[in-house]
């Protein structure tokens, strides 16, 4: 399992850079991953999504879908694409320290 150094933190990640242990996540780690994903600064709108995704993941064991975020009124799909440009489901999950969203077959 690859390891990644972010500032003073060492985190376990998978081959695509998704955290494998949510306990190693913190806001500094999130900010660094966000920069790597092309998001210069995490705004309150980003944090709302990240915090909901983490809470939902802890409750249900799976990364919530874009449709769920939209349906529950967390954020509209259009806005989600605006603030996490280029693959919001994957980017938001990565920044939130969650596993890669399950690819549907």
């Amino acid at each position: 399992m690859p390891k990644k150094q972010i500032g003073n933190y060492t985190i376990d990640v998978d081959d695509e850079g998704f955290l494998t242990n949510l306990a190693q996540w913190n806001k500094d780690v999130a900010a660094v991953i966000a920069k790597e994903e092309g998001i210069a600064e995490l705004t309150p709108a980003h944090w709302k999504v990240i915090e909901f995704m983490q809470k939902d993941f802890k409750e249900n064991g799976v990364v919530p879908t874009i449709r769920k975020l939209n349906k529950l009124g967390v954020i509209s799909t259009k806005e989600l694409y605006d603030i996490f440009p280029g693959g919001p489901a994957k980017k938001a999950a990565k920044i939130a320290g969650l596993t890669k969203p399950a690819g549907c077959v």
Partner: protein
Amino acid sequence: MKKLVILGAGTGGTVMANLLNKRLDKKDWSITVIDKDNVHYYQPGFLFIPFGFYTADQITKEKAKFLPKNVEFIVAETERIDPKNNAVVLPGGKRISYDFLIVATGADIQPDETPGMRDGWRESVFDFYTIEGSLALAEKFKTFKGGTIVVHINEMPIKCPVAPLEFAFFCDWCMHRKKRRGEVELVFVTPLSGAFTKPVAAKKLGALLEERNIRTITDFSAERVDATHKKLISYDSREVSFDLLVTVPTNMGAELIERSGLGDELRFIPTDPHTLRSKQHENIFAIGDATNLPSSKAGSVVHFQSEILAANVVRAIEKKPLEEGFDGHSNCFIETGRRKGILIDFNYDLEPLPGRFPFPVIGPLPLLKPSRLNHMGKLAFRWIYWHMLLKGKPIPFIPSRMRLAGKKRPDQS
């Protein structure tokens, strides 16, 4: 007398009625099947209709014909399931109580989920996931003057995730045969990052799309359809123009699942991936397209689930622990045109790989490679479906659990 109720008489419900009719003691148990209509379509046949390969009557039969004679069959809309009181509620308030319930209500297309999609519906925007859509496309193709055909997946998951690829390959082949391929540009638009969800198959199928001169646009999440200007527009503001849009709209479970409070955001039932029991209710099970499982929504998957589900319903009745038997096994023939097909065999953990099936080395069917035999297999499957699969008969040499033997990772020698 105890009662098993099965909601839905499509592939899953019909197989379960046949399997459990044999296994439950008729002195103690009665089985009731409820469906909103009595028409059973061989859904894989929808793909063939627009190209004139099948007619509607070849893929249409009566649901009642495939259910055991002593099973009660009620044709009615279901208002909702009342899981607290173990009853199914029909319109008018009639209640049918159950001891155990199997939900097999399937999935359907929902064009209304995408703004603008209905505007050009069956004029310039078509589906081939319904009998009406397939027949309308067959008519459309008769007068189609050429231009850009966009084959589109709106959102995952969809039933038979390879069907849109097959549709694109068939378009290429049919235009090629009519010596009109030059008049048509073919574009494949998908929300996925490749032609398929899993890397090895995505690479093979992607290469085949390229070989057939089908342009592929990936990571495209459609926000809306502009039917007036014949454009598909994504959330990240990309546009794809079409003359003919053949779309697979968002697939969702039955509305009654939402009314019953049993579904997720796509009205699919949260289901244990290995035992097939509902995660919310101990005496409710689910099968096939109605579940939220990360396996393919396909007839072969229902077939593999059915054996395990029948055993688990019997175990639940006998108050024994359930068998965690389902491994996500899926097995699909993919038509690639030119009288050839590809076969893929995979499960939750192992992606489709090249090799031979069902027996190592001798096959006879090659995996992940276009072959004449796989095409014949796909055609033969219609007979197998009506005569064996729906009756719950085992299909020779193809077990419920996937086998690794005969498969090979491309990087291994």
